[in-house]
């Protein structure tokens, strides 16, 4: 009897245990991204007026209603002082015209407005359209087809994007995917010069938007996934002739490091570090491509830009600091000579290019405003640096980070979390942020009216395995196998309003999909951005409250702009057309059956094809008359 009872008790206990285990498994099942609505979180009070950062006085522009470069001005603020559209009336914002580009790839460019003409440069085949804004139907003034090589599409790492053109002295400057820089007559669309800088046979493409400063057109290479040795080149704006070219790896004479080079930190001082911090000959295929943003300080004649990831991704194949990759350079725009360098990710482990925008600000300080540059880095840290010396004044995480603990301000070096350091032959789980970083290329906006930097960024983590990569010219040089997923909270994108003085987030909007569009701040205290499922939004710059949204034909990864039309009204424009690295699953029709597609991004956006479709279209919005 006792024995029988014992058996039944054990049986009942086992059953209860099994039920409990099943319940536990169900409760802790892998979280599927089910996060749909955007959630606003208020975290800190707005900075007081006297404790506000201000745009760099030396690089400021007078508001003339135009938009002449993708980042708005040389200080990279993406701020338009136009204030007709404001929180009170933005709900009445309506599209006034659209223009189809007829291209189904990712549209990352910002339209430009100069005088009464709008200029749009498309992804490959990099067509430039000029639209007449004086006529109510906005007809085409001219279109220019540069006819880049078809083969270039095969060596474009992350969709065949183009991030925009630049305007100066009556000319439109832009790059083509197959590595050319062109100058067009802005009035007629006539080609003035074209200079070939990249060689697609080794994977050297150009996707970035050029910057014009002191009569020089600055252009940087893409190809970090192909072992391309990166460079920044300066072309004469008048003739297209090469003025100087500074490589990101190799001997000092190639990197244009001379007696004027005074980096702040000791680890950046020494002879030919671009050779000695690599395995033998590794620098020749070492990456460091300058495919991101450039800003310019006219007072010091310095340009600031970042260098991309070292090649290959597998860090075990390239022992050393791998200089001068994954860092930021300050160079004299007249000679190209390097002034200082800071490496945010020495011996980069996670494809953390340092090419994001350098926003030039003046921070309030006891002895008068301090000239700084603020960089929301791929590492997930917000770097505030002295723009004359390269000293890191502060570095605070603005995204969820578990791969890096802190930045040692004495040595400038990051302290990586040892448990997240990848090892060849093993898959390392849950590395945050993932390869696209806390934030990728899409530029932030800074409003002097609130003193806040509006950062569109990501909340992604990844599992990554490493194996030995072979270098074959013109094919990817990676040795990595990544798979991304949403970070803590389940949302994949974030818009953070960051106070660079108090070094904290003031508010934050958690977006379901990765945020891959740029931000725009306006004098009407609005912030515009778009989502990858095609919602173009306006939020209150002070509180982050959603005030208006409009459904576009396709997800947007473009850069919104604001301009004053010939009729004196304020307009907002943006390109829709999902794609890029994040949207390649749609624009490239990739298969979500393989979670490592598009370098692992596909796994994080498996729901995207069901929520949007590809197709490039320009939208222009205005208030009703």
């Amino acid at each position, binding site marked *: 009897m006792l024995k029988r009872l014992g058996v039944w008790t054990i049986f009942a206990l086992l059953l209860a245990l099994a039920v409990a285990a099943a319940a536990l498994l169900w409760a802790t099942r892998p979280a599927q991204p089910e996060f749909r609505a955007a959630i606003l979180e208020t975290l800190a009070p707005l900075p007081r007026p006297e404790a506000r950062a201000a745009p760099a006085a030396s690089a400021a522009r007078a508001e003339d209603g135009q938009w002449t470069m993708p980042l708005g001005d040389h200080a990279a603020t993406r701020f338009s002082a136009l204030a007709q559209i404001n929180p009170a009336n933005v709900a009445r914002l309506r599209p006034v015209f659209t223009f189809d580009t007829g291209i189904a790839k990712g549209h990352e460019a910002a339209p430009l407005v100069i005088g009464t003409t709008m200029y749009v440069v498309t992804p490959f085949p990099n067509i430039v359209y000029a639209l007449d804004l004086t006529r109510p139907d906005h007809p085409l003034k001219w279109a220019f087809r540069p006819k880049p090589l*078809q*083969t*270039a*599409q*095969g*060596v*474009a*790492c*992350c969709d065949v994007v183009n991030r925009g053109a630049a305007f100066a002295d009556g000319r439109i400057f832009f790059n083509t995917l197959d590595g050319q820089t062109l100058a067009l007559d802005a009035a007629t669309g006539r080609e003035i010069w074209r200079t070939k800088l990249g*060689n697609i*046979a*080794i994977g050297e493409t150009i996707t970035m938007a050029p910057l014009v400063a002191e009569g020089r057109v600055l252009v940087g290479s893409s190809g970090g*996934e192909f072992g391309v040795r990166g460079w920044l080149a300066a072309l004469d704006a008048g003739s297209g002739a090469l003025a100087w070219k500074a490589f990101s790896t190799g001997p000092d004479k190639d990197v244009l490091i001379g007696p004027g080079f005074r980096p702040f930190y000791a680890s950046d001082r020494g002879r030919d570090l671009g050779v000695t911090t690599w395995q*033998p*000959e590794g620098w*020749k*295929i070492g990456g460091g491509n300058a495919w991101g943003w450039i800003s310019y300080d006219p007072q010091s004649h310095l340009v600031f830009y970042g260098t991309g990831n070292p090649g290959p991704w597998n860090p075990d194949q390239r022992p050393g600091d791998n200089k001068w990759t994954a860092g930021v350079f300050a160079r004299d725009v007249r000679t190209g000579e390097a002034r200082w360098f800071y490496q945010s990710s020495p011996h980069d482990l996670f494809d953390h290019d340092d090419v994001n925008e350098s926003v030039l600000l003046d921070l309030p300080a006891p002895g008068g405003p301090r000239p700084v540059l603020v960089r929301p880095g791929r590492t997930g840290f917000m770097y505030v640096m002295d723009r004359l010396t390269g000293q890191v004044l502060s570095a605070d995480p603005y995204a969820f980070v578990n791969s890096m603990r802190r930045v040692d301000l004495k040595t400038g070096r990051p302290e990586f979390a040892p448990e997240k350091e990848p090892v060849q*032959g*093993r*898959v390392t789980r849950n590395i945050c942020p993932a390869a696209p970083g806390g934030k990728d290329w899409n530029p932030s906006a800074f409003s002097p009216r609130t003193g806040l930097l509006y950062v569109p960024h990501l909340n992604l983590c990844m*599992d*990554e*395995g*490493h*194996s*030995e*990569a*072979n*270098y*074959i*010219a*013109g*094919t*990817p*040089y*990676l040795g990595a*196998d*990544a*798979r991304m997923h949403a970070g803590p909270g389940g949302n994949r994108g974030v818009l953070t309003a960051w106070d660079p003085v108090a070094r904290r987030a003031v508010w934050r909007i958690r977006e379901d999909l990765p945020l891959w569009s740029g931000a725009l701040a306006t004098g009407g205290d609005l912030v515009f951005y778009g989502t990858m499922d095609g919602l173009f939004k306006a939020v209150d710059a002070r509180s982050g409250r959603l005030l208006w949204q409009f459904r576009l034909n396709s997800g947007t990864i473009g850069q919104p702009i604001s301009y004053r039309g010939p009729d004196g009204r304020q307009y907002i424009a943006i390109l829709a057309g999902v794609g890029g690295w994040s949207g*390649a699953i749609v624009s*490239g*029709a*990739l*298969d*979500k*059956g*393989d*979670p*490592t*597609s*598009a*370098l*692992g991004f*596909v*796994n994080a956006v498996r729901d995207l094809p069901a929520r949007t479709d590809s197709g490039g279209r320009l939208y222009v919005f205005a208030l009703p008359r």
Partner: protein
Amino acid sequence: MSSPFRADPPSLPAGRGRGWVRLRKKRRSPFPSPSPRRGEGRERGFGVCDLSPAAEPPHPDPLPLGERGKGAGPSGTAVRRYGPIVALLLIPLLLAACHRETRDYKSDALKASDRGAAFEGNAFHIAQGQRLFGWMNCAGCHSHGGGGMGPPLMDDEWRYGGSMGEIAATILDGRPNGMPSFRSRITEDQAWQLAAFVRALSAQPRQDVLPSRGDEPRNTEPMTLDERKPIRPATPKQDDSSEE
């Protein structure tokens, strides 16, 4: 994981110099010059058979650069007297070599070839194809079949046809929208092995010949769990080598 295809410490830019030196390098190294060949066409062997002006004549037995010219010997008179006769005698020999040197690089031959069948149903060849897929950096663009910079290979859409012959032709000759040519980097048999693996990505071969695991740490499910997807060829007329 070391592989026999590992590139030597690369020396870029690719070696320049006398023509024959470059040609010889090309033959010796598996990864020679960074110029992917594209499109289809006829390419012939080097030398007198080659009508294109760019090619240089081959040296039958190339000597190291320094020794070149020494072998000719100092006795000029014998060379002067018998040289033309020897040269005339050599011409038929050279022309005879043309037959061997001329190779048909047109993809039609591959497409029509029925060699694919021997590779497709063979577990060994598929496994070899899988290793080549990693070594030749195919995975960099096509991932583990889902695509990225290049199109997916595990779905039912084939831009240039999904038969064994069409895939092998794509690998060897490249395609105009970015697929590089691998003819100078792998043998034709290796291309067939790669084609067999590519078809395995959409689970075309029998399940029992598919690789159950990869060679490298990876983030994907084993291929044996893949769902079979139909092949919709780009070309209306499909050769029969791929049918089961």
